[in-house]
């Protein structure tokens, strides 16, 4: 098979792990140590959400709506309650009345009424799979039988499934109170359009008038899911003293605490959230689904702990997905390929409640390029699909797919090389984002384009008739957010590092490395752990590519502070004015001792030493990525095979290069799935047809070549080690790169994602 013959190039002679050596000027950073939680994860000992085992544990199940849009007329739970082994049944009626008020719970703003209604439906079921009621029983089979005995009467309403459905005249209205918000001006009529906003700079008409070539295209992208392999879980115990303990597999324990507190009207002081290991999130494990329901069930069951675990079908029906979208892009360029004007209209499906990532998409859509005259219109639209959640650079992939496709059409019309047109237009320090905010610090977009243009891959010709090559660029703003941590100096010279960023992809390692670098001790001497919400100060979610950046900054600060305190303590003990620290040795007067000896001495001679740091960096370095895809299309079936794939990404500074590469490869492959085969398929009643991993087709190992990575390092000056977030931007370009490669291979362009075989075959006929 072509895919693997090609890919073999990548592995020949490269099967041993890359050498682990620090970057120039560092002792730890840039090396590739084994992660602290590694052994537990390869031996099966690591405890994930569903692995929590407690005395007297009850098992819960959720009854979900079979209808996409229906009024709930009545719910009768009496037969379920009567079933032997059933300990509690709850419905939306058990939820406290939620305020009709928008709150920012540390991640995204949402109306508390909607947040509550998504946990257990209030008066309406708004999507197939919307939670209606839940049961706790002595075992999962009993709980499952019990939900079958709950009788719900629905008045089925017509489903509203797409942007076009939702915006049609006389479209059924999902949310009675919803009015369009246009930058603070509220519409007067009931609507499904929650929000419209606009970025506008320069003179659009003049820009288009100055263009030699103008291309305008409309694109459609389908709903896709994050696809983490661990289904959502939630375990909770409501103690008789009113204290609540939640065991959560989440991207943010404090986000779980805040949301549960708001939904259940329980003060945060009464809620402790204990993080388990987390089996993937990608943005989808920030919203709570099960935790508040488990608390309600536990309370009703007399305080016994209750565990809820979703099936894969429930995960696909009721969690996650990111928005399907309609996107119109118009770009004009002069004869040299310089963009003179661009207009983007983004219509994003938020799912059942407002809050699609269209705001982020509006910033991504034109961001790689310096454009004087531009307009971006964003529309947030509710439809009868699950409430959308963040998904890795939320909204970015759809947006970049559209822009990058149009840009390549312009390059083709002008006869300009696809890398070159990106070099001509690429944004650099001093240029402005589409929303007008200036890049005041260095950014690495042009360096990533250059890296691709100079790569072996780009300079190796294609060899087959139906092969094609595509480039695309992408931007992600990244995030800072709040982080908190403590570090305790142990008598043996090790340091216990207590932080609260749940570790999804090796961040305990990258944080411990930054601490070790700051202190000048070995990585193995730092023992990081992720604490619960009672053990550290507030900490934002592991999301927005912020953890290695912000929590790493806190680790660095603690390292500096610990050294400073150790010097003071040693100065006291030695009765000297100043203590120096170099090459792992403290010296003052005639005294010279190692870090380990110093730790022992401090332990013996005074109070224990602990430092802490809380940070909230307001500035952070954005990420840029340029990617190159080679594909081959089977002209008789329309199937697209990825022959070769290279990603160049500005990573600022790679703390642990293996995990940086892993982020890049993983993001690319999620993007490949999005581009080629992943999509939500609904029937005319709005019921999800492909709610399984058989028919929701995420890439398998056999669908891919090796993913070649080029780590471009343009350090971000605002971070002590130059770190930029690396987790997200990698998913932005793939659909655009592949669309450009497919167009290059078959000579016609795809305006719809996914580019599944049937669609490619159709495009080839045209």
């Amino acid at each position, binding site marked *: 098979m*072509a895919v693997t013959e090609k890919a073999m190039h990548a592995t020949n002679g490269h099967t041993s792990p890359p050498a682990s050596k620090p970057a120039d000027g560092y002792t730890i950073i840039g090396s590739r140590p084994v992660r602290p939680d590694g052994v537990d994860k390869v031996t099966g000992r690591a405890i994930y959400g569903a692995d929590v085992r407690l005395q007297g544990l009850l098992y819960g199940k959720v009854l979900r709506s079979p209808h996409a849009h229906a009024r709930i007329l009545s719910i009768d739970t009496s037969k379920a309650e009567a079933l032997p082994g059933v300990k509690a049944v709850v419905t939306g009626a058990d939820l406290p009345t939620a305020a009709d008020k928008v709150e920012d719970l540390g991640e995204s703003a949402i109306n508390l009424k909607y947040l509550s209604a998504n946990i257990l439906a209030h008066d309406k079921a708004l999507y197939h799979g919307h939670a209606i009621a839940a049961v706790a029983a002595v075992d999962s089979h009993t709980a499952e039988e019990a939900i079958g005995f709950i009788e719900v009467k629905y008045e089925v309403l017509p489903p509203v499934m797409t942007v076009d459905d939702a915006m049609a005249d006389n479209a059924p209205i999902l949310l009675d109170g919803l009015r369009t918000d246009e930058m603070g001006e509220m519409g007067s009529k009931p609507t499904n359009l929650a929000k419209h906003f606009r970025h506008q700079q320069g003179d659009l008409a003049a820009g288009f008038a100055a263009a030699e070539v103008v291309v305008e295209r409309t694109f459609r992208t389908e709903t896709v899911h994050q696809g983490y392999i661990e289904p959502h879980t939630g375990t909770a115990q409501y103690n008789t003293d009113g204290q609540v303990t939640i065991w959560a597999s989440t991207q943010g324990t404090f986000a779980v605490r805040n949301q549960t507190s708001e939904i259940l009207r329980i003060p945060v002081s009464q809620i402790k959230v204990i993080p388990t290991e987390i089996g993937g999130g990608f943005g989808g494990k920030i919203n709570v689904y099960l935790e508040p329901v488990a608390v309600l069930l536990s309370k009703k069951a007399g305080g016994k702990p209750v565990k809820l675990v979703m099936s894969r079908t429930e995960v696909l029906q009721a969690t996650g997905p990111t928005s399907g979208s309609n996107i119109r892009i118009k770009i004009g360029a002069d004869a040299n390929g310089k963009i003179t004007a661009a207009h983007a209209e983004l219509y994003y499906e938020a799912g059942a409640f407002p809050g699609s990532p269209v705001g982020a998409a509006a910033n991504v859509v034109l961001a790689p390029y310096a454009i004087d005259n531009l307009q971006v219109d964003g529309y947030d639209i509710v439809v009868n699909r699950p409430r959308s959640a963040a998904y890795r650079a939320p909204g970015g992939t759809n947006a970049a797919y559209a822009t990058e496709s149009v840009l390549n059409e312009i390059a083709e019309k002008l006869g300009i090389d696809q890398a070159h047109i990106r070099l001509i237009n690429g944004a650099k320090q001093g240029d402005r984002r589409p929303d007008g905010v200036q890049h005041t610090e260095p950014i690495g977009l042009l360096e990533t384009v250059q890296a691709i243009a100079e790569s072996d891959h780009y300079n190796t010709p294609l060899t*087959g008739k139906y092969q094609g090559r595509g480039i695309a660029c992408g931007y992600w703003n990244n995030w800072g957010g709040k982080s908190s941590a403590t570090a305790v100096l142990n008598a043996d010279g090790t340091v216990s590092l207590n932080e609260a960023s749940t570790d999804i992809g090796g961040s305990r390692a990258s944080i411990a490395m930054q601490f070790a670098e700051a202190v000048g001790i070995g990585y193995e001497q730092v023992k990081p752990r992720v604490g619960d919400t009672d053990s550290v100060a507030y900490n934002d979610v592991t999301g927005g590519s912020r953890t290695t950046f912000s929590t790493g900054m806190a680790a660095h600060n603690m390292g500096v502070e610990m050294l400073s305190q150790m010097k003071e303590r040693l100065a006291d003990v030695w009765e000297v004015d100043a203590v120096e620290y170099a090459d792992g040795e403290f010296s003052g007067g005639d005294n010279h001792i190692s870090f380990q000896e110093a730790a022992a001495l401090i332990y013996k001679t005074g109070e224990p030493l602990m430092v802490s740091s809380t940070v909230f960096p307001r500035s952070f370095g954005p990420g840029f990525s340029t990617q190159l895809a080679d594909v081959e299309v089977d002209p008789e*079936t329309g199937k697209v095979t990825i022959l070769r794939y290279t990603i160049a990404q500005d990573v600022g500074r790679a703390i642990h290069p293996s995990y940086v590469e892993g982020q890049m490869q993983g993001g690319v492959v999620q993007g490949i799935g999005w581009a080629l085969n992943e999509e939500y398929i609904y029937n005319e009643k709005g019921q999800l*047809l492909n709610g399984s991993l058989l028919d929701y087709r995420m*890439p398998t190992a*056999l669908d891919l070549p090796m993913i070649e990575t080029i780590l471009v390092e343009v350090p971000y000056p605002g971070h002590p080690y130059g770190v930029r977030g690396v987790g997200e931007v990698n998913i932005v370009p793939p659909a655009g790169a592949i669309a450009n490669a497919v167009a290059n291979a078959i000579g016609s362009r795809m305006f719809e994602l996914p580019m599944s075989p049937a669609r490619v075959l159709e495009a080839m006929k045209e």
Partner: protein
Amino acid sequence: MQAFDFVSARSVDEVVAALAAGGERARPLSGGTDLLTQLKEGRRAYETVVDLKRIPELMEIRIGTDGLWLGASVPCHLINKNADIQKMYPALHDSTGLIGGTQIQGRASLGGNLCNASPAADGIPNLIVHSVTAHIAGPNGSRTLAVEDFCVAPGRNALQSGEVLVALQFPAPGKNFGAAYLRFIPRNEMDIAVVGAGASVVLSDDGQTIQSARISLGAVAPTPLFVKAAGEALAGQPVSEETLEKAAQIAQEAAKPISDMRGTIAQRKHLSGVLTKRALRIAIDRARGTSTVDSLGRLNGNG
């Protein structure tokens, strides 16, 4: 999942007795890769489940001068590993290498695949082109049935109450025989066939003429389809792209697919022709001992 009684049968008689007693509420269990999924999803519910895997006859691979006796519950991985089967029944080898993933092949059986009677079953077209006979045991004794008559509707087979599929009998392949099974899926593994195609040929000694051929399609009709006319049209014809094209056209016309989430009518009709041709090319290559096409049956890798 509804609770059920589990019977671990040790003989065919025991199975027949248990199934006869349970009637519609009893179901045999082979590899379980379809049945357990259906039970979990509530698509089927039984009061008795009868495990077949401890019955020697159903777990046997026996190759003799009269062909292959394949116990109905033999898992795919054992079939796929068998070098004689690969040589003698290459389409069977193809099928057992692509049903599910490796771990599904550790359990799934051809008998189970046949009895599950999915229109898209990857295990059935190969049985049809290999001219397989199903051996059935029941309360009234044994009977046989041509495998193309075994499936009667989506999810429904020809077994009567109390009957169990015991084995699949493959006739000995003649000389100059070749066969292949191919399917089209959007990924490269772990998918349900959008269309599947099996083909077998017997060539003249010089390899230039098709003496006889059989074609079968999956996922284009309520049951796996035996396209007899396509095979007959090939008989006596010279091996050429034109000949294969003609057979492909007949197969395409015979296909009566539906549109669903996995494929449209137009796509399936089109693929029926493409895959028929590709399966024939591989079958011919194998009959001749040549390799003029790639593993997907494409000339020069591009159709």
